């Protein structure tokens, strides 16, 4: 039999973790072989009987035993993924896409900006960075969600801070829990959209590289802010989403003008997109 790139490999659900009322993290392990991926790459997850959808790896690329995806419930496949139980089998294809270009930026300061479920690939990125912490300069994370209960990976932020990552969290609308949360040096009482966190951090755009993932509107305003601060378009990286089907550069669904997000992305330097009418 010739090989079939549409055929998923089987993986077992090792663990299901409820991160928030909207998001669950699935820990998966391939039945055969290992999943080798780079931070920023994605996979196609099949829930048998329902369908397939793309998700970025949210776990450390250095962990070859298992891998994780964090899934926000928005429709049929994501809904079915939320109903999965430990021990069940799913299908996975991938890894697909390019991932974050980390090799190019050793020694640099890194600014990571995430909004909503867009934090999933950035968590994988953070794990990749802290695993080689001494290779990088200052690491700063700005992360916002709509409300405190939607902030995910709650028990992990302090661990990142211990690894010398500056963590700043914010919510669009706060509540009483937000006041006592131990998340971030000053961000834990911060209320406002992600871009308001820029007022709290000192950045050196000369040395710094930005990685951004989140909903289109958040990406738009974050890019504007970064450009204003003096970040060159070539050092602003965006992880983008588009409708995807094949993941192979064949079905045409994920294109942005002449690019295929599944092959040329999902991570793009803003430089590549700046002349496009509506990139986000």
């Amino acid at each position, binding site marked *: *039999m010739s090989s079939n790139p*549409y*055929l998923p490999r089987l993986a077992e659900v090792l663990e299901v973790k409820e991160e928030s009322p909207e998001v669950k993290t699935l820990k998966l392990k391939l039945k055969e072989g290992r999943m080798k991926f780079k931070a920023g790459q994605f996979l196609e997850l099949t829930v048998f009987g329902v369908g397939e959808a793309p998700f970025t790896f949210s776990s450390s690329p250095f962990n070859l035993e298992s891998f994780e995806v964090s899934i926000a419930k928005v429709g049929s496949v994501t809904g079915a993924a939320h109903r999965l139980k430990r021990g069940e089998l799913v299908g996975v294809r991938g890894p697909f896409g390019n991932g974050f270009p980390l090799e190019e930026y050793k020694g640099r300061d890194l600014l990571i900006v995430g909004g909503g479920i867009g934090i999933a690939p950035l968590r994988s990125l953070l794990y990749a960075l802290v695993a080689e912490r001494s290779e990088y300069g200052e690491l700063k994370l700005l992360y916002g969600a709509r409300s405190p209960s939607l902030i995910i990976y709650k028990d992990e932020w302090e661990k990142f801070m211990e690894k010398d990552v500056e963590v700043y969290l914010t919510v669009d609308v706060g509540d009483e829990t937000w006041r006592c949360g131990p998340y971030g040096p000053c961000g834990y009482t911060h209320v406002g959209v992600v871009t308001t966190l820029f007022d709290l951090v000192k950045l050196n755009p000369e040395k710094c590289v930005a990685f951004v993932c989140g909903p289109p509107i958040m990406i738009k305003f974050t890019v504007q802010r970064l450009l204003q601060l003096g970040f060159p378009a070539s050092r602003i990286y965006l992880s983008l989403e*588009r409708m995807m089907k094949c993941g192979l550069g*064949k079905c045409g669904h994920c294109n942005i003008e002449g690019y295929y997000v599944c092959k040329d992305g999902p991570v793009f330097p803003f430089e590549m997109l700046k002349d496009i009418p509506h990139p986000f």
Partner: protein
Amino acid sequence: MLTLSKHYTLVAPIVETPGKPPILSQLNHANFNRLELKIRPLTPYKFFFQPPSEELFTYKLAEGVVELGYEVKKPENLLLLGLRSCDLKALEKLDMVMLEEPADPFYKSKRENILLVSLDCSEPSPSCFCTEVGLKPYPEEGYDLNLSRIEGGYLAEAGSGKGEELLKQFEDLFAGESEGQLEQRSERREAVYRKVKEAYTKPLKDLSKVGEEYFMEFTKRCVECSGCVFTCPTCHCFYISDYRQRELGGRLKTIDSCLFEGFQRVAAGVNPRATLNSRLRQRFLKKFVYFKQRYGEYGCVGCGRCVEVCPGEIDIREAAGLI
């Protein structure tokens, strides 16, 4: 041809409705007299390689196990007749997409096993503009066998090992050619080339340099039927969806169109190409700008099929600045 059809499933351009352009059908005794080899068929040949619907794999769910299976079918003795230079070129362009690693095994098996018998164009359609996208109206490569109409019959030329075999197998059908016949072929080819070429005087417009509003006059007339996409021999986009009946299920690859409103709409209703203008622009740019950026050639072969089927009388040649 009937002799061939005894050995092969032979698909050819057949006039189904008198006065209308031929469409592709299986050739048999009943429709043999309606075989039309002068005019290119309105149906593209791509569906024999990318069928409207095809199974990618099946699965069976049982307690704690999932059994996956798939079958790459090999078409047996299928011969497509009547492809033109543009049709062969279109398959080459589909190859660039579908055979790019990791190759689509379903497409690949069809490409490897279906025999292609092409023709020199003798009566180009008024909508043909192959010469303007760098093609000649006669095949130069990509065929198993090419037939060139000359006085009193056809000159046959093999373009592959399988074509050679075909020639040998049906030796008595194909007489050897003489010097004069080859000359006649060149003359005819040149005349048809000039006929198409001379219909156009303006160069292709660089669509990467025009604004979005440029496409509005076409968008106004588009009824979103996707007739252009489905008759286009190079449009390759597809959808993937699952079906399930109890413990059995599978995944299908089905025909799709970038002009459909939902083509890029994602969960929660976000739609990066919500306007018809943005979708039509994407399609035109894909043909003349993006495909070239990616694969080094235009994504359009100038066959003119879309011009003929569009109920809104949208003419891709006008959009591309040729007329």
